[in-house]
């Protein structure tokens, strides 16, 4: 009987051993996307998969993780775990997650499936196949976990439909579409490196530790279940960058350009996370600024010191992102607040305790620039005139965030930042030097961007009136607007009022 093979040998046979040289068609025709971006791969065998995972081992690990996860989700549902949250307003963070992030996981699933087909190296094909399946598993576990909340709260019922249509969701969607409509090496640099390596902690830590701090054990559990996959993806992201740069000297400049672009694109998406983290979590584990300092300034600073020996430098405009870190969440949440009549979540003026927390976390900016704004809105609300913006916002042609950013790097924190380019006879407005430089590099691409307010005015979003547009978005009546007095607020108070009564009865008995 044959001897049992060791792991390394098995990996080699089950991955590298699966390839062959095509003879019926030239290789360029079999892998038509591999060369047009200008990346030169001399030897695919130099690709090192640090995990050396075979399909057999992969299924075993993933099945174990799923078994644990679904046991916890079941018991969470049976015990009405949603009643143990800090407050129902916390659910607004989950709405942003399932509408904004879960569809990205699905986009990543499709993107990596395409890469598995387009790369000619077998090691890369297998790694991308597994990541593709990981991403599909993530989106499934997220849907299954959050479906319990969908029974009790608003805004969670149709996230994939919303993702393709709603104005604030065009921010994450357009970023992923940008990457997915690029070539395979750019997609890899964007999603595996810029997003999953450089910025992933800034996405997952706020959501997962936010969940832990607010009693959401279900979300914490799917976070843990995805974590070992994520660390595999991060390692892959770093390996691919090193691999590409080492393959040919011409690759360096192209890859650096993609790192610059996709760092800024992904960073702009995280603006939504900053607002969620600082304003929507009833109990915030750390501020956006604190997270930025640890995960970007310190960790990525160290990373790029290491990558210096490959000739790579920090992404362009990273200084501006750091300068913005004391303003970002306040500016984005202002937009979410004043346009939440057209959003599938609810917002409110921060409570007194929240404002004090923000003053403490943002000593240089909050009291001076942003507290007066919230006090003004609070006053209006008190007079029965809760502020909603009566028009549609100007949106950046590149990142698609409403143009709420100010010229902080130029020393004007209270002056909106406007950049404009001319292309093909029209003006194109961008929110920052980063977004303008991305536009100017590929204007042919961004001139075709689907800009939500412009699409509404072109008549492509269900009609001319706001109710028509909200119907086109598949919003329900209770999804939008002010949190106080919303359906979620009312049902939460009713449920907790009743459970207090129960306690009273038990105690008196």
């Amino acid at each position, binding site marked *: 009987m044959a001897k049992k093979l060791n792991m390394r040998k098995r990996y080699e046979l089950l991955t590298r051993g699966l390839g062959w040289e095509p003879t019926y068609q030239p290789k360029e025709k079999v892998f038509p996307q591999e060369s047009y971006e200008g990346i030169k791969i001399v030897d695919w065998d130099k690709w090192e998969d640090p995990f050396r995972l075979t399909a057999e081992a992969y299924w075993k690990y993933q099945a174990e993780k799923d078994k644990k996860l679904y046991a916890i989700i079941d018991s969470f549902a049976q015990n009405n775990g949603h009643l143990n949250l800090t407050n129902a307003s916390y659910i607004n963070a989950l709405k942003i997650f399932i509408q904004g992030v879960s569809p990205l996981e699905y986009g990543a699933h499709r993107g990596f499936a395409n890469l598995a087909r387009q790369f000619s190296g077998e090691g890369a094909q297998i790694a991308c196949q597994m990541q593709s399946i990981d991403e599909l598993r993530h989106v499934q576990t997220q849907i299954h976990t959050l479906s319990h909340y969908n029974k009790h709260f608003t805004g969670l019922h149709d996230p994939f439909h919303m993702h393709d249509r709603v104005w604030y969701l065009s921010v994450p969607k357009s970023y992923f579409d940008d990457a997915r409509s690029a070539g395979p090496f750019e997609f890899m640099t964007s999603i595996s490196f810029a997003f999953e390596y450089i910025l992933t902690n800034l996405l997952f830590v706020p959501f997962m530790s936010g969940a832990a701090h607010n009693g959401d054990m279900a979300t914490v559990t799917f976070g843990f279940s995805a974590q070992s996959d994520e660390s595999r993806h991060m390692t892959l992201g770093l390996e691919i960058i090193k691999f590409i740069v080492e393959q040919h000297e011409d690759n360096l400049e192209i890859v650096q350009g993609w790192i610059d672009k996709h760092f800024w694109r992904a960073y702009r998406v995280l603006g939504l996370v900053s607002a969620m983290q600082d304003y929507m979590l009833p109990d915030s584990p750390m501020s956006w600024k604190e997270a930025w300092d640890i995960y970007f300034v310190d960790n990525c600073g160290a990373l790029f010191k290491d990558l210096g020996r490959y000739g790579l430098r920090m992404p362009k405009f990273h200084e501006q992102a750091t300068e913005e870190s004391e303003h970002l969440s306040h500016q984005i949440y*202002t937009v979410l607040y004043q346009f939440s009549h057209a959003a599938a979540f609810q917002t409110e003026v921060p409570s007194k305790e929240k404002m004090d927390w923000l003053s403490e976390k943002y000593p240089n900016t909050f009291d001076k620039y942003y507290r007066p704004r919230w006090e*003004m809105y609070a006053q*209006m609300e008190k007079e029965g005139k809760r502020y909603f913006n009566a028009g549609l916002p100007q949106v950046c042609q590149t990142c698609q965030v409403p143009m709420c950013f100010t010229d902080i790097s130029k020393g004007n924190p209270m002056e909106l930042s406007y950049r404009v380019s001319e292309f093909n006879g*029209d003006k194109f407005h961008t929110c920052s030097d980063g977004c303008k430089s991305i536009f100017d590099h*590929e204007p042919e691409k961004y001139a075709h961007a689907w800009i939500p307010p412009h699409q509404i005015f072109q*008549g492509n979003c269900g009609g001319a009136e706001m109710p028509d547009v909200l119907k086109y978005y598949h919003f329900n009546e209770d999804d939008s607007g002010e949190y106080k007095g919303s359906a979620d607020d009312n049902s939460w108070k009713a449920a907790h009022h009743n459970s207090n009564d129960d306690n009273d009865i038990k105690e008196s008995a």
Partner: protein
Amino acid sequence: MATKTNFGTYPVGNKDAIENFHGNQLVYIAWDDHLSVGPANVFPLPPEMPFGALISEVIPSITSFHPDFEKIDWDKVQWNLDGKTITPVADQSIADNGVSHKSLLRFKTPDLKGYQSTGN
């Protein structure tokens, strides 16, 4: 540098070309030093609309809630169109005043600096 593609060239034309707006043109309008209003607002407006109507109808639709609004002295307002100072003529059309498709029109009220003069 032209965008690299593996499918040839991108289609000609811009998605937001003026032809797609049913006779209107897009105009972005912002009130400086009043960030509580929000980002600039975008409006589809007929190019022949008099500039005066933009002042009396369009701008109030987004700014009239603000405590500073009542105090605006429109004769003192400073206008900035696409980065250049202009002196608009109220009974001429916005097009004749130089407002074109996707123009950014900003106005400043020199004596009014927002809620409690904080730029809000």
